[in-house]
């Protein structure tokens, strides 16, 4: 029995909002600009979909996973249920231009659209390479404009409502783990607005997202030079400008980590159909995790057409990925425990899912 008022009090005012954007655009009472979302007016509705679908209100992880990935064998306590993991990259340089690593996400979305699996895609673009915006793409030619990592959080999911109102029947969504959870909760709460059988969810790996303060920092560092883009490979912050690249420690960027990221349990978008991240051990390649049948259907098409190539994922590297996830999960459980002691519970910490990482039962 909670709505916009409680969304403001329990999520936004506490700094838990991930800027997924799901509550924006569905509802005229909630507005967003840059890295801020506000419940501008009280709607007076006691049972709000915004509250129910928010990834930062109480979430029963086991139930959501059961609903959307219940039939997936092979549960990993650290990177979620999946069937396959590969190194992957796009093969067509026309498609992958502008991508961060192997261009796998761009390739998959392009394939999904070309194959008619989706009519449009909810993506994140950044015209200046820094300040990201939600982007609804319905023309394959525009997909490339959204390529590349954005380190600043964007309210991309607001485009999901734009897609629905535009009458798009099938839609692809690319998002951070919190956004993947947002989509899943939305599908659970209002299935008539976001049918799971007509939605393809590609999740990104994410350890943290940055606030708009990072944009101002980058601009200040660049001075008179125009910023072309930002990359954070292997602990280094690279600010690419019209007059060369400025190199800084990644710690400079991490000081702008959003507080909401400190309670994010999910590193690899465990509830997505497909998850994609960097493969830091091999330049120009991505890590590709296939979770659902729907996800495999798309990867299969991309392989068949030759748009995507894959190769075996080194077991040692998988272990490195899992340990990175474990480290983050342990920090997050400690933080979730702290806020629970202060009276806010957003997950059931007594579930084995959370207990196991702390009690070192995982291997």
């Amino acid at each position, binding site marked *: 029995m909670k*709505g916009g008022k409680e969304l403001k009090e329990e999520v936004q005012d506490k700094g838990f909002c991930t800027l997924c954007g799901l509550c924006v*655009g*569905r*509802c*005229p*009472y909630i*507005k*967003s*600009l*840059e890295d*801020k*979302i*506000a*419940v*501008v*007016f009280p*709607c*007076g*509705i006691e*049972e*709000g*979909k*915004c509250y129910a679908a928010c990834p930062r209100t109480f979430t029963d992880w086991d139930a959501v996973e059961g609903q959307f990935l219940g039939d997936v064998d092979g549960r990993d306590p650290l990177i979620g249920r999946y069937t396959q993991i590969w190194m992957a990259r796009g093969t067509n340089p026309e498609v992958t231009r502008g991508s961060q690593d192997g261009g796998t996400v761009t390739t998959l979305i392009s394939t999904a659209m070309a194959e008619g699996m989706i009519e449009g895609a909810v993506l994140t673009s950044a015209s200046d390479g820094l300040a990201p915006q939600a982007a609804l793409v319905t023309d394959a030619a525009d997909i490339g404009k959204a390529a590349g990592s954005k380190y600043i959080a964007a309210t991309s999911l607001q485009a999901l*409502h734009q897609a629905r*109102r535009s009458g798009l029947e099938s839609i692809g969504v690319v998002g951070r783990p919190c956004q993947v959870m947002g989509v899943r909760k939305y599908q659970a709460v209002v299935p008539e607005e976001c049918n799971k059988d007509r939605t393809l969810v590609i999740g990104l790996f994410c350890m943290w997202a940055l606030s708009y303060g990072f944009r101002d920092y980058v601009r200040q560092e660049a001075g008179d030079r125009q910023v072309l883009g930002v990359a954070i490979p292997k602990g280094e912050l690279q600010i690419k400008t019209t007059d060369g690249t400025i190199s800084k420690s990644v710690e400079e960027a991490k000081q702008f980590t959003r507080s909401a990221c400190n309670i994010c349990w999910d590193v690899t978008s465990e509830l997505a159909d497909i998850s994609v991240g960097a493969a830091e051990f091999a330049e120009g390649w991505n890590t590709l995790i296939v979770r659902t049948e729907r996800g495999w259907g798309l990867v299969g098409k991309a392989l068949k057409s030759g748009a995507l190539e894959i190769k075996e994922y080194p077991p040692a590297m998988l272990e490195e990925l899992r340990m990175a996830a474990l480290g983050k999960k342990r920090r997050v459980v400690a933080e979730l425990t702290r806020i629970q002691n202060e009276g806010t519970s957003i997950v059931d910490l007594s579930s084995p899912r959370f207990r196991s990482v702390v009690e070192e039962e995982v291997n």
Partner: protein
Amino acid sequence: MQSVLTINQPGTQVLMMGNEAITRGALEAGVQFCSSYPGSPSAEILSLMAATAKTFGHYAEWSTNEIVAIEAATAASFAGLRSLCIMKQNGANVAADFIMSLGLSGCRGGLVVVFADDPESHSSTNEFDSRNLARWAELPLLEPGTFQEAKDMTRWAFELSEQTQTPVIIRSVTRICHGRGNVVLGDFLPKKQANKLGQWDKLIALNPLHPFTHQKLARVREIFETSPFNTYTGPESPELLIITSGTGSFYSQEAVSRLEVTGRVGILKLGTTCPLPGKLVKSYLEKCPRVLVVEEVDPFLEQNVMVLAAQEEMLVKFSGKASGHIKGPGGPGTGELNPDVVMDGLSAVLGVPRPSRQDVVVDPEKDIVLPPRDLTFCAGCPHRATFFAAKNALEIDGRQGVVMGDIGCYTLGGAKAGHFLLSSLFCMGGGIGMASGMGKLEAFGFDQPVLAMAGDSTFFHACLPALVNARWNNSKMLFLILDNEATAMTGFQPHPGTGQTAMGERGVPFSIEGICKAMGADVHIGDPYDVAATTEKIYQLIQQPGVKVLILRRTCALVQSRRGPKPRVWVEQEKCLGDACGCGRFCSKVFGCPACIWDAAAGKARIDEVVCNGCGVCASLCPQGAIQIEGRD
């Protein structure tokens, strides 16, 4: 076409609005120069003067503000012409710096200044009693109590002004300005030519002239002693003497009649109230030392008569505002008078029972009961969209930005229609002046964004010095100029930005952005109907240092609706979510345009197409895209 202003048949009786009567009085007097800044309740006078300018050959102008208006009118007087200047009570304050010197300088051609007060502030922010300013400035004061007097006093005021070489103040009030009554017309006096000013013709306000001011006032007082505008009705030796002026005379007559005390109470109605005709008043005090003073708003006459009684060592029992007998719901010295207020006081003083107030008993079964109405913007008003965008921008920003308000239609944004966004409200130009100061408080820990709002006419009237100040002192603030291309609140009068003059000539249209840029401000222009872009622009500008100006330009919806067919807006009800989550009657409940109504039978939104002016902003806000618009460019 002949009108009550132009009929040249002396002795004819016509029905006239008070503002028409004042205009007619000036026309009969052969006025040649008229100036004003629009303000309720006197705005019609200059409009009528402008409309009759060609017929009578006089000049009429809307001036940039009231002090310029009085300066311009005084110049005409200096050249020997009869001139009229009109302003509401707030305007009198704006003009006060100059008016305070007019007693010293005096005038040449008849100079008549109309102060139109607004007791109970029907369309003002206050109910200042401008008679105090006349006394302070040491200028003769006339107070019409009937529509006939409104005409006759205006006409005579020019004569008095020339006879005594001093400007004359006429104090009207809302009920005189906007009420109607019978007026017998007079003839039109011939006009004079302007005098050539010689080297030693001076009009100077300097203190050595002060004794002459007093000599003039003494002469005026002598004239007032025998003025036909001061009348007495009642028994030879009344038990109680009502001394009244202005609207008080009608209310007093009605109260005396309804309490059936005509044989006991006399009414001394004064039309020439300052300087007080002491001998005349004293003669009535001698007949009856028991007095009830009835006047709007301040105890102005009351105190002057008290001083007279003390000076004359008379033992008079006074009732009125000081005694608490004449008081509205807000207490003595506040609000308008009416017959009930006077009856209350009169019955208490005389100890006679008063008839019941005849309160209207409402039968909700049979009678249509008018619901209480909020202060709001018209349908399609660009200001509603501006306030909505500003509210969104400030809430998203989250630092509790403060908006300094100003005087105009957008003042209504201080109420629910503008989401209670205004934090301050004073006078014309007061908002940007305050913002200029508030934008300098960062050093003291004040970290809220600072905004000011003002309309286009207000911008020219009173905002320029404060904008210079803000820029000069590098204040951090955003100035929103709500440019609806008219002086909308008072009836769409032109202003310097429109390029039209009062007499319909094409003048020089002033560029608001050009002026702001010349002052060195960072100037942006937006369309308030584009709510999303306006929201984003306001948000961006309050993140930045320095003086920012955002001109939000859209023609007043009422002006626009008169220019031709308006777009049709309607709701596709099958798309409307109504009360459900994701809408919750957003258009009617939150945006709140009077044309966005609720169809209770359907449980859906509806557009009242009669009220709607076709702006289409609601269509851009509807989350379902259920509101359709047809016929807009």
